[in-house]
């Protein structure tokens, strides 16, 4: 029963988001260097951190899938990666807006973390064509798990390599001239991180519930020997 606990979770997410936004706009002080633009950081960075953790979680589910053979882990892995890719889109767009506001260009190659994230995003974007090109459902799930594990191993290597390739280092937000975030900013950041994390978990649960409902529907249809509905056959992983 995936829907169980979805309501309290969503309520907690909404509450956390409201508190976080209030802190961002009413409590956190203005940054000395970047001014009001720095407020984007409370959205962009938590999204990035949660997306990356989501990819790692997808890899962990993939390992569990390979070891147990239970297809539920594969569905969890797929949804985790799927949600992190969507969050990744948000990361790249908000990062681009931040770049335009801070440095005047919609994209800068000088920011190693943003560039690394782009490459990670491109890697996981290939997950979909890769999955859907494999027709046999069981094989598709197994290969997808291998992909998730390989891509998971790739992420830290990628961040390291890109950082090493930079000759210029742009000011990192966590190391201001004072040598660290002031307490009020740190609190706001942590609450934002919690809120975005809760959002990720809620949406993953939501997606799994929908998939589960579809899966149950298929079971019912099979049990009743009812005719199948028109429409394209989906090769996407199912939950039943």
């Amino acid at each position, binding site marked *: 029963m995936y829907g169980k606990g979805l309501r309290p979770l969503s309520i907690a997410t909404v509450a956390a988001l409201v508190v976080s936004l209030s802190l961002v706009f009413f409590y956190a002080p203005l940054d000395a260097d970047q001014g009001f633009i720095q407020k984007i950081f409370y959205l962009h960075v938590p999204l990035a951190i949660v997306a990356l953790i989501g990819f790692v979680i997808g890899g962990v589910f993939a390992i569990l899938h390979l070891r147990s053979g239970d297809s539920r882990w594969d569905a969890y892995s797929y949804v985790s990666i799927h949600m992190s890719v*969507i969050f990744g*889109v948000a990361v790249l767009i908000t990062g681009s*807006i931040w770049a335009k506001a801070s440095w005047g260009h919609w994209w800068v190659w000088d920011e190693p973390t943003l560039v690394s994230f782009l490459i990670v995003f491109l890697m996981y974007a290939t997950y979909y064509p890769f999955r859907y090109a494999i027709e046999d459902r069981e094989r598709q799930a197994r290969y997808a798990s291998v992909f998730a594990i390989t891509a998971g191993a790739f992420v830290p290597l990628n961040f390291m390599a890109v950082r090493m390739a930079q000759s210029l280092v742009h000011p990192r937000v966590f190391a201001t001239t004072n040598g660290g975030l002031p307490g009020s900013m740190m609190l706001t950041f942590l609450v934002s991180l919690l809120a975005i994390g809760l959002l990720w978990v809620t949406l993953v649960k939501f997606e799994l519930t*929908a998939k589960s409902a579809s899966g149950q*529907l298929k079971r019912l249809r099979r049990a009743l020997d*009812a005719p199948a*509905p028109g429409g394209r056959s989906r090769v996407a992983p199912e939950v039943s």
Partner: protein
Amino acid sequence: MLALLAATPALPLDEAGKYVAGAYVVFLALIVIYVAIMAAKLQRIERELGELAAFAEARATADQAAPGRESETPSISDSLASHGSRGGGA
């Protein structure tokens, strides 16, 4: 409350505000788009569930009607009841 309002920094109406707003708007838009897509999925599930329910009921009444001579003519109140419940539930 008034103290809170007094402490609220006036939103600078220069360029910076537009970019920050833009970023949060993008975030909101993505969430809403996701909700819309899930709503479409939910609609499809509901529709298919309705079809299945109709199918199952039709089969149940057919099973009732076919074998037994006791229930040769399904009573009008029966079909009214099943129609009513379907109409009520839809």
